């Protein structure tokens, strides 16, 4: 097992490097624009001043040199200063991260509570009315763009009914309800179907038949055998969902004015604050890679087949 952990850790290093490289390359494309952007509204500026500014920001050095110096800074926690606020990018980013993580966590919990029971029910009662209804609902949920749902909720619960705030009053649970609901619906629509498929596949396996031949009740077969087997698949799928969730918070945070890194990213893009955008891109990817890694390790630990095989091998 330990060997496997090490192996996986080694595997993600090139990926992480690639992420940083790609993000940096992207920003570099815009890098020169940043300087021109800075002086865009200040009337005619001499080329010397632009060049000087470039040199100051280190934008005149060759690409790879810039990359490695940036990477070095990155690894020591220095991601540069924001073009807009002049503050330390890393600090700003870190200060907004908990809000996004909270939202993500709440949405994941909500999704689990909704999708897993419904997915199981749909699988157990597959091809019957309940299943049909659930799949229909999930289909609708999949076809609604999340910002549309957000606006719908905003209109209904905040503006019409005044039950919940339309603009987040700080990072509070009350303000989190609407964005969480929005995110949870989109996630659940997809995830419920996946849960259903996973359980359905388990239900089709031979051991279910074997258990029935031994006269065991359906409910027991479900809880003790099927779900235990399907749990692994369900967990892996959850990780994938979290990934798309992390990517989707940006729009939702903007709409609800939730002060997290997603909103920060959108604002930064609008204001062309490239260091900030860069930090966002790299960090979100890194977090996603980490989540996948943890899920993979968890999977390997929980599946007795793999655990024992690995044990024997090492």
């Amino acid at each position, binding site marked *: 097992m330990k060997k496997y952990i090490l192996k996986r850790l080694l595997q993600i290093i090139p990926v992480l490097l690639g992420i940083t490289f790609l993000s940096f390359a992207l920003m570099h494309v815009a890098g020169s624009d940043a300087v021109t952007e800075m002086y865009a509204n200040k009337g005619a500026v001499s080329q010397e001043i632009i060049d000087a500014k470039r040199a100051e920001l280190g934008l005149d050095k060759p690409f790879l040199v810039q990359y490695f110096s940036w990477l070095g800074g990155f690894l020591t926690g220095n991601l540069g200063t924001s073009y807009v606020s002049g503050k330390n990018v890393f600090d700003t980013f870190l200060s907004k991260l908990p809000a996004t993580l909270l939202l993500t966590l709440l949405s994941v919990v909500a999704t689990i509570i909704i999708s897993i029971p419904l997915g199981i029910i749909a699988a157990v009662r597959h091809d019957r009315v309940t299943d049909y209804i659930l799949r229909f609902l999930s289909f609708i949920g999949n076809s609604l763009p999340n910002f549309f749902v957000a606006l719908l909720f905003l209109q209904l619960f905040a503006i019409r009914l005044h039950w919940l705030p339309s603009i987040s009053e700080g990072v509070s649970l009350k303000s989190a309800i609407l964005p969480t609901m929005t995110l949870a619906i989109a996630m659940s629509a997809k995830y419920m179907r996946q849960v259903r498929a996973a359980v359905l596949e388990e239900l089709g396996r031979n051991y279910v038949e074997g258990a029935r031949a031994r*006269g065991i009740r359906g409910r*027991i077969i479900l809880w003790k055998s099927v779900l235990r087997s399907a749990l692994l698949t369900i967990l892996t799928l959850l990780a994938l969902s979290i990934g798309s969730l992390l990517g989707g918070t940006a729009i939702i945070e903007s709409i609800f004015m939730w002060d997290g890194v997603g909103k920060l990213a959108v604002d930064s893009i609008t204001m062309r604050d490239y260091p900030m955008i860069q930090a966002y891109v790299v960090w979100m990817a890194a977090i996603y890679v980490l989540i996948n890694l943890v899920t993979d390790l968890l999977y390997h630990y929980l599946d007795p087949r793999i655990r024992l095989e690995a044990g024997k091998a090492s």
Partner: protein
Amino acid sequence: MGKVLQYQHVDIAYRGNTVIHDVSFSVEDGEILGIVGESGSGKSTLLRAAMGLLGDTGMVTQGDIWYKGKDLPDLSDAKRRTINGPGIGMIFQNAGSSFCPVRTIGSQLYEAMTEHTRITRKAFQATAVDTLGKLGFHDAPDLLARYPFELSGGMQQRIGIAAAVLLHPEIILADEPTSALDVTVQKQVVQELLKIRQLYHTAMLLVTHNIGVVNAMADHVLVLKEGRVVEYGETEQVLRHPNQEYTRRLMDAVPRIRRGMSS
């Protein structure tokens, strides 16, 4: 000696297509009946019908399967559950996959037992070890703690048999119990099944395409062709002096070793 299981004019259809036509036979108390036929003849389907394992697409469209005065296809799921296991047991061709891969053998056997009787974990352990011992397993407690995938194919098959026997059914339905095994293990399994009949007086309905196994075990033989009964009689008679052309061809197709077909 009464009839344990009786099929009367049974028709079975999958999605509207009849695959079993007017099949009738019975199994007496303690008898071993072998059902032979080529693949696709419907042998497994016959067994599954008795257990209610035909799935969503299969159905006994005509006829009755009698067990203890009950017509099996008409039983509710709840009643079925009381019969599956302690009344009628089943052994699958691939016994290993008939167990949940992420649970230990012991927990699954225990689950099967507690479903039908009240028994403590300790008592179960004792019974299981005892029965496994009688069946020739050497390290029963260790075996019970293992996961299915940890066992060899032959071991898995024998555990599958043990699981069925543990519930002391009156009849065991065996679906190609030796087909997935090496020849040496096949012999072991055959001997084990015969021993079970000897110890517990269990009847058996043995489905197989292996004539050698049938010869070694069965009292009577039923020959199935495309869902219909072609011949039915005592083993000796059917195998050596078949009445029907089809049966003759089936027997001729079996390679014979000069040693003779003795068990």
